[in-house]
């Protein structure tokens, strides 16, 4: 508020200068109006402004902290908003008599709610950015703890401005808008196999462990209360149990945040993580049951009610899971049929996932379980069903949402602390809660593990148990539940909220910070940094089969047996209904791994080629270059388990002549590549401008909401074809004049294999365009800057580099503006023929195949009713219907001169 006061005069002065046309009376009226408002509803309007300004200041503060570069940045957010708001203030009172037409009006209330929300998101994001930019800090203190501290600071500022806490994490916001995406993300990226192999143990921890925590904490606190440890508190046994139940559950958000950075071994991770996800069902039931008990009052509780409570547990938990399962299947089914609306198919995942959450909530089932299982069920099918780009989209959006809300949750947890009204200190209650939570968690984990280890194949080690007990982080779910308590029923609600907050801070900050040193100190088995190797995957599959066989032989019905049965069922029935027929083929894991590795090699191959300036080295090195090590996991991270489609790019050794089969997953890589190398983008953009066919029609839409690759024109396609023909003719002519035309190699299988990789890309690209709908568009030079650029530029880059590195004599004549050269039809024909019959000549200079994508330009589908003027009559004879059938016309990029056809 004081900020506002300080700025108020500024507004007025600016107002007079900026809006000179506004008459003074109006300003006066406005100011008085403002003053009245200020006096009347300080809490509303002015605090709103205060927040606005506060946030702006914060942002600038954030940027300032970020470094000296930020100075200019700092000004920019301030200036426009200042002038804008000052400008707009003149018309603020909407009920004031308007003497003229307002040019602009300032309508803060109109946008207040969304504006503040968006600003919060921005601030949280910027806060995270600052925190993450200090690696030496995040190495010691986990990000979640830092975010909470950041929240403290923000809360302090708000408090300073408002003298009260206007922003707190409300249960509605948390449970409806922040939590679902975090959990969906967790479910979607859940390592299913790992999860289900440890399902039993996870369930034991989640159900029995949580019940134990709740009961023991509640009872012990009650006992201490009876013993007089907390002085005068109005809390009964049931209230204690209610409190115990809300604080018993390990929080998924906090656990993910902390354990993500520690990298413990996968079994330990899945134990803690799985428990934190699944115990929500228990918590919600316990909370509801005890809440009901509290409102019912002690005496009315009888055995029937208790039994009802137990039944409701099963209904809530299993009902929720089932709901999630159903919605998961629904998502799979929907994505099976979204071939024609690929642009929005990614959206279904989120919408239906959220719907799963809401439906479960509506039926008072466990919403978290529902959305977890929804994500877990659909991951396999949607990855297979959807277009590769959509899968990438889903992945990234999922991460953006989850990370964003996680950040906001922690920030708000911090902000919530700065509120005088909730701080009710009761040393006994708070300290005892902390102690009991810690102690009972340890007892629970060790006892349950002791039982579980009797049944486990590989027992959990002692150290793992220590980490598990120590990883019992409480978080925002507990806080959300605590704020949901009814003050009328529970007199000491504020004490509980306050204690919950302290527990959350204690566990997230203190335990979070000490977790890493502890893990190091105890030498906990870490997750191995796995490099994707084919032999390993092959062997894993062999192991699986082996175990099933051994279980069969030794007559055990064990875990492997069940998994095998499930797999058969899944393959025979579920995939049939839920997966596209095309995706059902070739979805073997080994194959997809193989495919990924090949892609990786291809990428590094190209990258290496570019590093050296060209792909020329291909011709000089006969050994297969293995770049795997160099570019290692960069890509595998981006695409953990891509659904591979058939791709033939590796089959080249033995099947040079075979039809290439498209592989869908390439685009993503290209995007990755492009993202990584902006200079290359510039390069390729330039290249495209120079060498590529320029779209003839200028009136077509650049923007389409439904398609990335819109608007193709058959005439253009035809023209591209002709142009290619022409340039080929040109090089043919130059060959006749003694300059060697480009060649291609057919006899070195190894090289072929290598070169095929980039080829595969372009082939795929063509194919995927073909397989699309009418809106096929091959390539337009001016699209390079558009969203399609990422798609198109990559292969172009290859070819550019290729042509660049090899000093191709044929290249130079090609540079001549050819549009002036009218090609006689007969010559065009001759060229076509020569392309096929003159291999001997080609063999003189061996050019790599890499300009293949442009080679692919030639076999474009042509329209028979083209209106294009030249070569029309002659071309059709040579127009290939199927690009695969055409013998590869070896060619460097045909460079249509700049400005040829704009």
């Amino acid at each position, binding site marked *: 508020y004081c900020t506002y006061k300080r700025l108020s005069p500024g507004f007025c002065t600016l107002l007079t200068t900026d809006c000179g046309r506004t008459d003074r009376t109006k300003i006066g009226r406005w100011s008085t109006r403002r003053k009245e408002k200020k006096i009347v509803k300080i809490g509303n309007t002015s605090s709103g402004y205060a927040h606005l300004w506060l946030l702006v200041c914060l942002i600038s503060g954030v940027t300032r902290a970020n470094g000296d570069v930020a100075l200019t940045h700092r000004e920019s957010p301030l200036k426009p908003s200042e002038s804008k708001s000052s400008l707009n203030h003149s018309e603020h009172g909407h009920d004031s008599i308007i003497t003229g037409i307002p040019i602009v009006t300032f309508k803060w209330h109109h946008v207040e709610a969304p504006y503040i929300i968006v600003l919060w998101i921005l601030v949280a994001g910027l806060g995270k950015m600052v925190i993450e930019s200090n690696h030496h800090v995040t190495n010691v203190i986990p990000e979640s703890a830092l975010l909470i501290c950041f929240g403290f600071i923000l809360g302090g500022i708000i408090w300073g401005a408002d003298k009260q806490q206007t922003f707190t994490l409300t249960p509605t916001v948390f449970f409806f808008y922040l939590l679902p995406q975090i959990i969906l993300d967790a479910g979607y990226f859940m390592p299913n196999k790992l999860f289900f192999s440890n399902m039993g143990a996870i369930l034991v921890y989640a159900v029995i462990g949580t019940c134990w925590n709740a009961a023991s904490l509640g009872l012990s606190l009650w006992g201490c209360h009876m013993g007089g440890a907390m002085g005068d508190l109005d809390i009964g046994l049931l209230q204690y149990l209610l409190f115990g139940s809300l604080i018993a559950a390990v929080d998924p958000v906090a656990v993910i945040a902390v354990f993500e950075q520690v990298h413990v071994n996968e079994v330990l991770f899945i134990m803690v993580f799985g428990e934190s996800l699944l115990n929500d069902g228990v918590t919600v039931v316990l909370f509801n049951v005890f809440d009901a008990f509290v409102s019912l009052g002690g005496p009315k509780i009888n055995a029937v009610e208790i039994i009802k409570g137990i039944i409701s547990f099963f209904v809530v938990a299993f009902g929720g899971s089932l709901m999630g399962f159903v919605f998961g299947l629904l998502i799979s089914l929907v994505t099976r049929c979204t071939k024609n609306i690929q642009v929005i198919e990614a959206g279904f995942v989120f919408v239906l996932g959220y719907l799963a959450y809401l439906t479960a909530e509506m039926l008072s089932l466990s919403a978290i379980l529902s959305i977890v299982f929804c994500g877990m069920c659909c991951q396999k099918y949607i990855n297979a069903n959807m277009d590769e780009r959509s899968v990438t989209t889903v992945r990234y959006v999922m991460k953006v949402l989850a990370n964003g809300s996680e950040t906001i949750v922690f920030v708000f947890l911090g902000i919530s602390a700065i509120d005088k009204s909730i701080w009710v200190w009761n040393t006994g209650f708070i300290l005892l809660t902390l102690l009991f939570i810690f102690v009972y968690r340890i007892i629970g984990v060790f006892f349950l593990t002791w039982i579980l280890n009797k049944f486990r194949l590989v027992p959990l080690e002692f150290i793992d148990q220590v980490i598990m007990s120590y990883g019992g982080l409480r978080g925002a779910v507990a806080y959300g539940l605590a704020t949901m308590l009814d003050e009328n029923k529970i007199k000491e609600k504020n004490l509980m909220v306050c204690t919950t907050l302290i527990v959350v801070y204690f566990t997230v900050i203190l335990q979070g910070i000490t977790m890493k040193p502890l893990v190091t100190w105890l030498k906990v088995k870490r997750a191995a940094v*796995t490099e994707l190797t084919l*032999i390993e995957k092959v*062997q*894993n599959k062999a192991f699986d089969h082996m175990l099933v066989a051994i279980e069969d032989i*030794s007559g055990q019905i064990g875990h492997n047996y069940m998994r095998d049965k499930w797999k058969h069922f899944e393959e025979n029935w579920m995939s049939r209904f839920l997966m596209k027929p095309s995706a059902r083929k070739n979805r073997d894991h080994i194959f997809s791994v193989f495919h990924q590795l090949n892609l990786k090699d291809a990428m590094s191959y190209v990258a290496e080629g570019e590093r050296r300036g060209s792909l020329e080295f291909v011709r000089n090195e006969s050994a297969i270059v293995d770049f795997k090590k160099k570019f290692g996991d960069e890509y595998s991270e981006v695409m953990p388990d891509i659904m591979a489609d058939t791709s033939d790019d*590796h089959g080249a050794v033995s099947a040079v002549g075979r039809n290439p089969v498209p592989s869908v997953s390439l685009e993503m890589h290209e995007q990755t590549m492009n993202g990584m190398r902006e200079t290359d983008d510039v390069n390729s953009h330039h290249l495209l401008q120079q060498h590529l066919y320029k779209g003839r029609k200028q009136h077509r839409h650049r923007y389409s909401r439904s398609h990335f690759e819109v608007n193709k024109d058959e005439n253009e396609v035809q023209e591209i074809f002709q142009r290619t023909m022409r340039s080929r003719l040109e090089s043919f002519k130059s060959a006749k004049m003694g300059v060697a035309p480009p060649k291609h190699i057919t006899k070195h299988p190894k090289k072929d294999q290598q070169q095929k990789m980039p080829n595969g890309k372009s082939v795929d690209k063509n194919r995927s365009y073909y397989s699309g709908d009418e809106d096929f568009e091959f390539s337009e030079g001016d699209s390079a800057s558009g969203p399609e650029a990422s798609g198109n530029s990559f292969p172009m880059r290859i070819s550019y580099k290729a042509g660049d590195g090899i000093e191709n004599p044929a290249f130079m004549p090609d540079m001549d503006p050819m549009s002036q050269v009218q090609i006689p039809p007969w010559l065009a024909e001759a060229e076509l023929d020569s392309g096929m019959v003159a291999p001997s000549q080609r063999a003189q200079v061996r050019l790599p195949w890499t300009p293949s994508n442009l080679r692919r330009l030639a076999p474009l589908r042509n329209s028979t009713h083209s209106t294009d003027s030249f070569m029309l009559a002659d071309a059709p004879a040579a127009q290939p219907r199927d690009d695969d059938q055409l013998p590869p016309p070896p060619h460097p990029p045909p460079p249509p001169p700049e400005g040829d056809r704009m």
Partner: protein
Amino acid sequence: MGSNSSNMNHIPDGQQLLQDTGFSAAQIIRLYERFEFLDKDNTGHLRPEDLETVPDLDMNPIGARIIGAFFPPGKETLDFGSFVRILAHFLPADSNRTRAGAQQEPANSTTGKLRFAFQLYDQDRDGKISRDELLQVLRSMLGLQVTEEQLQCIAERAIQEADADKDDAISFDEFRKSLEKVDIDHKMSIRFLR
């Protein structure tokens, strides 16, 4: 099955097996029941055909190889001792930590497990997995999903990955090295009921 009369005394070499393999007595008894069940004609020996009758094993892509692993070259029959000793490869590693490590490598050590897996590939027992041997396994596991050329490429690549000495085959050491990141104890153990 379920004959209560069977105890350790009925089992040939019972005590010795108990010592050698790390199975508990209950497990050995259970396995013996299984052995007798498989041994349809009560000869005290299993023949490959006996194992082939196990349901679901014919569905297993490498089932035949597993059966083969029970019968060392030259041997047509399998007595209970060998049966248990082979199954002992699949015991979790540390359930036999009580045994003295004096004798040679126990079957359920990581090396023992790997050796078993290795022999599934190495059909000609020359100590190397050749490309053809790998290809056969791949073919059976991947089946119709991929083409022969793709299979060959996969095999080629897999060998390249592991092949340290560039002899175009995977020796046992190379095999072990290529899998050292894998938790073999997890992957190659089953829980034997007791």
